[in-house]
Protein backbone atom coordinates (compact mmCIF):
# COMPACT_ATOMS: atom_id res chain seq x y z
CA UNK A 1 0.00 0.00 0.00
CA UNK A 2 1.45 3.38 -1.06
CA UNK A 3 1.72 6.05 1.59
CA UNK A 4 -0.70 8.77 0.40
CA UNK A 5 1.37 11.38 2.24
CA UNK A 6 4.22 10.66 -0.17
CA UNK A 7 1.89 10.98 -3.15
CA UNK A 8 0.84 14.51 -2.22
CA UNK A 9 4.39 15.68 -1.56
CA UNK A 10 5.15 18.65 -3.83
CA UNK A 11 7.94 17.86 -6.25
CA UNK A 12 8.33 21.20 -8.01
CA UNK A 13 11.48 23.13 -7.29
CA UNK A 14 11.53 26.73 -6.10
CA UNK A 15 11.98 29.30 -8.89
CA UNK A 16 15.47 30.36 -9.87
CA UNK A 17 14.86 34.02 -9.03
CA UNK A 18 14.11 33.17 -5.36
CA UNK A 19 17.80 32.65 -4.56
CA UNK A 20 18.67 35.91 -6.34
CA UNK A 21 15.98 37.81 -4.40
CA UNK A 22 17.14 36.38 -1.07
CA UNK A 23 20.79 37.22 -1.77
CA UNK A 24 19.86 40.77 -2.81
CA UNK A 25 17.87 41.26 0.39
CA UNK A 26 20.75 39.93 2.48
CA UNK A 27 23.22 42.23 0.73
CA UNK A 28 20.92 45.20 1.36
CA UNK A 29 20.55 44.24 5.00
CA UNK A 30 24.33 43.91 5.41
CA UNK A 31 24.80 47.32 3.83
CA UNK A 32 22.33 48.91 6.25
CA UNK A 33 24.00 47.21 9.23
CA UNK A 34 27.46 48.39 8.10
CA UNK A 35 26.24 51.95 7.59
CA UNK A 36 24.73 51.93 11.07
CA UNK A 37 27.96 50.59 12.53
CA UNK A 38 29.87 53.31 10.74
CA UNK A 39 27.81 56.21 12.04
CA UNK A 40 26.65 55.06 15.43
CA UNK A 41 28.62 55.14 18.67
CA UNK A 42 29.24 51.76 20.13
CA UNK A 43 28.06 52.43 23.68
CA UNK A 44 29.11 49.00 24.86
CA UNK A 45 32.71 50.17 24.45
CA UNK A 46 32.39 53.87 25.22
CA UNK A 47 30.31 53.72 28.45
CA UNK A 48 32.78 51.63 30.54
CA UNK A 49 35.64 53.81 29.30
CA UNK A 50 33.90 57.05 30.23
CA UNK A 51 32.82 55.67 33.61
CA UNK A 52 36.39 54.63 34.31
CA UNK A 53 37.60 58.07 33.30
CA UNK A 54 34.98 59.74 35.49
CA UNK A 55 35.81 57.72 38.61
CA UNK A 56 39.52 58.18 38.12
CA UNK A 57 39.06 61.96 37.87
CA UNK A 58 36.78 62.19 40.91
CA UNK A 59 39.19 60.02 42.93
CA UNK A 60 42.05 62.35 42.10
CA UNK A 61 39.93 65.34 43.11
CA UNK A 62 39.19 63.74 46.48
CA UNK A 63 42.87 63.11 47.13
CA UNK A 64 43.67 66.71 46.30
CA UNK A 65 40.96 67.97 48.66
CA UNK A 66 42.08 65.71 51.52
CA UNK A 67 45.70 66.97 51.50
CA UNK A 68 45.54 70.58 50.43
CA UNK A 69 48.89 71.39 52.11
CA UNK A 70 50.68 68.44 50.69
CA UNK A 71 53.50 69.68 48.61
CA UNK A 72 54.22 68.46 45.25
CA UNK A 73 57.04 66.01 44.69
CA UNK A 74 58.57 68.46 42.38
CA UNK A 75 61.61 69.83 44.33
CA UNK A 76 61.51 73.15 42.52
CA UNK A 77 58.09 74.01 43.98
Amino acid at each position, binding site marked *: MDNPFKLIKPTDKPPENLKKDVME*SIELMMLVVRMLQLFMVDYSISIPESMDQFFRTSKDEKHKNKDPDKKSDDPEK
Partner: protein
Amino acid sequence: MVNSRDIAEDLSHDIFLKVFLSLQKYDGKASFSTWLYRITSNFCIDYIRKHKRISNKIEDYTYELESRTEEENEKDLLSSKAELLARILDELDPEDKMILLMKYQEEMSIKNIMQVFDISESAVKMRLKRAKAKAVNLKTEIKKGHG
Protein backbone atom coordinates in the same frame (compact mmCIF):
# COMPACT_ATOMS: atom_id res chain seq x y z
CA MET B 1 1.11 24.47 3.92
CA VAL B 2 -0.30 27.73 2.56
CA ASN B 3 -1.86 26.32 -0.63
CA SER B 4 -0.58 29.15 -2.81
CA ARG B 5 2.64 29.15 -4.78
CA ASP B 6 3.02 32.94 -4.64
CA ILE B 7 2.57 33.06 -0.87
CA ALA B 8 4.92 30.08 -0.47
CA GLU B 9 7.60 31.96 -2.45
CA ASP B 10 7.14 35.11 -0.35
CA LEU B 11 7.32 33.09 2.85
CA SER B 12 10.44 31.24 1.63
CA HIS B 13 12.14 34.57 0.99
CA ASP B 14 11.23 35.85 4.48
CA ILE B 15 12.23 32.57 6.13
CA PHE B 16 15.69 32.61 4.50
CA LEU B 17 16.21 36.16 5.75
CA LYS B 18 15.11 35.14 9.22
CA VAL B 19 17.48 32.16 9.11
CA PHE B 20 20.34 34.46 8.10
CA LEU B 21 19.56 36.86 10.95
CA SER B 22 19.18 34.03 13.48
CA LEU B 23 22.34 32.11 12.52
CA GLN B 24 24.12 33.40 15.64
CA LYS B 25 21.45 31.75 17.79
CA TYR B 26 22.05 28.30 16.31
CA ASP B 27 23.75 26.40 19.13
CA GLY B 28 24.33 23.09 17.36
CA LYS B 29 22.29 21.07 19.89
CA ALA B 30 19.93 19.91 17.15
CA SER B 31 20.87 19.22 13.55
CA PHE B 32 20.78 22.19 11.21
CA SER B 33 17.83 20.74 9.26
CA THR B 34 15.81 20.37 12.48
CA TRP B 35 16.61 23.95 13.42
CA LEU B 36 15.56 25.05 9.92
CA TYR B 37 12.33 23.08 10.29
CA ARG B 38 11.69 24.81 13.60
CA ILE B 39 12.02 28.29 12.15
CA THR B 40 10.00 27.35 9.06
CA SER B 41 7.18 25.67 10.96
CA ASN B 42 6.86 28.52 13.47
CA PHE B 43 6.88 31.09 10.67
CA CYS B 44 4.26 29.24 8.61
CA ILE B 45 2.00 28.51 11.58
CA ASP B 46 2.13 32.19 12.60
CA TYR B 47 1.31 33.24 9.04
CA ILE B 48 -1.60 30.81 8.71
CA ARG B 49 -3.02 31.82 12.09
CA LYS B 50 -2.93 35.47 11.08
CA HIS B 51 -4.26 35.10 7.57
CA LYS B 52 -6.43 32.04 7.35
CA ARG B 53 -9.77 31.56 8.97
CA ILE B 54 -9.72 28.04 10.29
CA SER B 55 -12.94 26.19 9.82
CA ASN B 56 -15.04 26.07 12.98
CA LYS B 57 -16.06 22.63 11.90
CA ILE B 58 -12.88 21.24 13.41
CA GLU B 59 -13.67 22.67 16.84
CA ASP B 60 -17.18 21.24 16.74
CA TYR B 61 -16.08 17.67 16.35
CA THR B 62 -16.71 15.33 19.16
CA TYR B 63 -14.03 12.74 19.25
CA GLU B 64 -16.32 9.83 18.75
CA LEU B 65 -13.48 7.97 17.10
CA GLU B 66 -11.05 8.50 19.98
CA SER B 67 -12.22 5.20 21.37
CA ARG B 68 -10.56 3.57 18.39
CA THR B 69 -6.95 2.63 18.83
CA GLU B 70 -4.22 4.83 17.43
CA GLU B 71 -3.17 2.02 15.09
CA GLU B 72 -6.67 1.82 13.65
CA ASN B 73 -6.71 5.57 13.01
CA GLU B 74 -3.27 5.40 11.43
CA LYS B 75 -4.30 2.53 9.17
CA ASP B 76 -7.47 4.41 8.20
CA LEU B 77 -5.50 7.56 7.40
CA LEU B 78 -2.82 5.78 5.39
CA SER B 79 -5.44 3.92 3.37
CA SER B 80 -6.99 7.23 2.20
CA LYS B 81 -6.77 8.29 -1.42
CA ALA B 82 -4.28 11.08 -2.09
CA GLU B 83 -6.94 13.64 -3.12
CA LEU B 84 -9.02 12.93 -0.05
CA LEU B 85 -5.96 13.17 2.18
CA ALA B 86 -5.01 16.51 0.62
CA ARG B 87 -8.50 17.80 1.43
CA ILE B 88 -8.35 16.48 4.99
CA LEU B 89 -4.99 18.16 5.56
CA ASP B 90 -6.29 21.38 4.08
CA GLU B 91 -9.10 21.45 6.65
CA LEU B 92 -6.91 20.53 9.61
CA ASP B 93 -5.41 22.95 12.10
CA PRO B 94 -1.91 24.01 10.83
CA GLU B 95 -0.13 22.46 13.81
CA ASP B 96 -1.91 19.13 13.31
CA LYS B 97 -1.17 19.24 9.60
CA MET B 98 2.48 20.05 10.26
CA ILE B 99 2.99 17.20 12.72
CA LEU B 100 1.31 14.67 10.41
CA LEU B 101 3.42 15.80 7.47
CA MET B 102 6.60 15.57 9.55
CA LYS B 103 5.77 12.07 10.71
CA TYR B 104 4.33 10.49 7.55
CA GLN B 105 5.70 12.57 4.68
CA GLU B 106 9.16 13.50 5.92
CA GLU B 107 9.37 10.39 8.14
CA MET B 108 10.98 12.37 10.94
CA SER B 109 11.72 10.63 14.22
CA ILE B 110 9.84 11.49 17.41
CA LYS B 111 13.10 12.96 18.73
CA ASN B 112 13.39 15.35 15.78
CA ILE B 113 9.74 16.40 16.08
CA MET B 114 10.38 17.05 19.79
CA GLN B 115 13.21 19.41 18.85
CA VAL B 116 11.18 21.19 16.19
CA PHE B 117 8.23 21.93 18.46
CA ASP B 118 10.33 22.11 21.65
CA ILE B 119 8.02 19.77 23.53
CA SER B 120 8.43 16.48 25.39
CA GLU B 121 8.21 13.01 23.87
CA SER B 122 4.85 12.31 25.50
CA ALA B 123 3.51 15.64 24.20
CA VAL B 124 4.59 14.74 20.65
CA LYS B 125 2.88 11.35 20.92
CA MET B 126 -0.27 12.95 22.31
CA ARG B 127 -0.34 15.58 19.54
CA LEU B 128 0.15 12.90 16.91
CA LYS B 129 -2.63 10.80 18.39
CA ARG B 130 -5.01 13.77 18.46
CA ALA B 131 -4.04 14.90 14.96
CA LYS B 132 -4.74 11.40 13.62
CA ALA B 133 -8.09 11.25 15.44
CA LYS B 134 -9.05 14.68 14.06
CA ALA B 135 -8.00 13.67 10.55
CA VAL B 136 -10.01 10.45 10.70
CA ASN B 137 -13.02 12.40 11.99
CA LEU B 138 -12.66 14.82 9.10
CA LYS B 139 -12.43 11.93 6.66
CA THR B 140 -15.72 10.56 7.98
CA GLU B 141 -17.35 13.99 7.76
CA ILE B 142 -16.15 14.55 4.20
CA LYS B 143 -17.35 11.09 3.16
CA LYS B 144 -20.74 11.77 4.81
CA GLY B 145 -20.94 15.03 2.88
CA HIS B 146 -20.39 13.19 -0.38
CA GLY B 147 -22.62 10.26 0.51
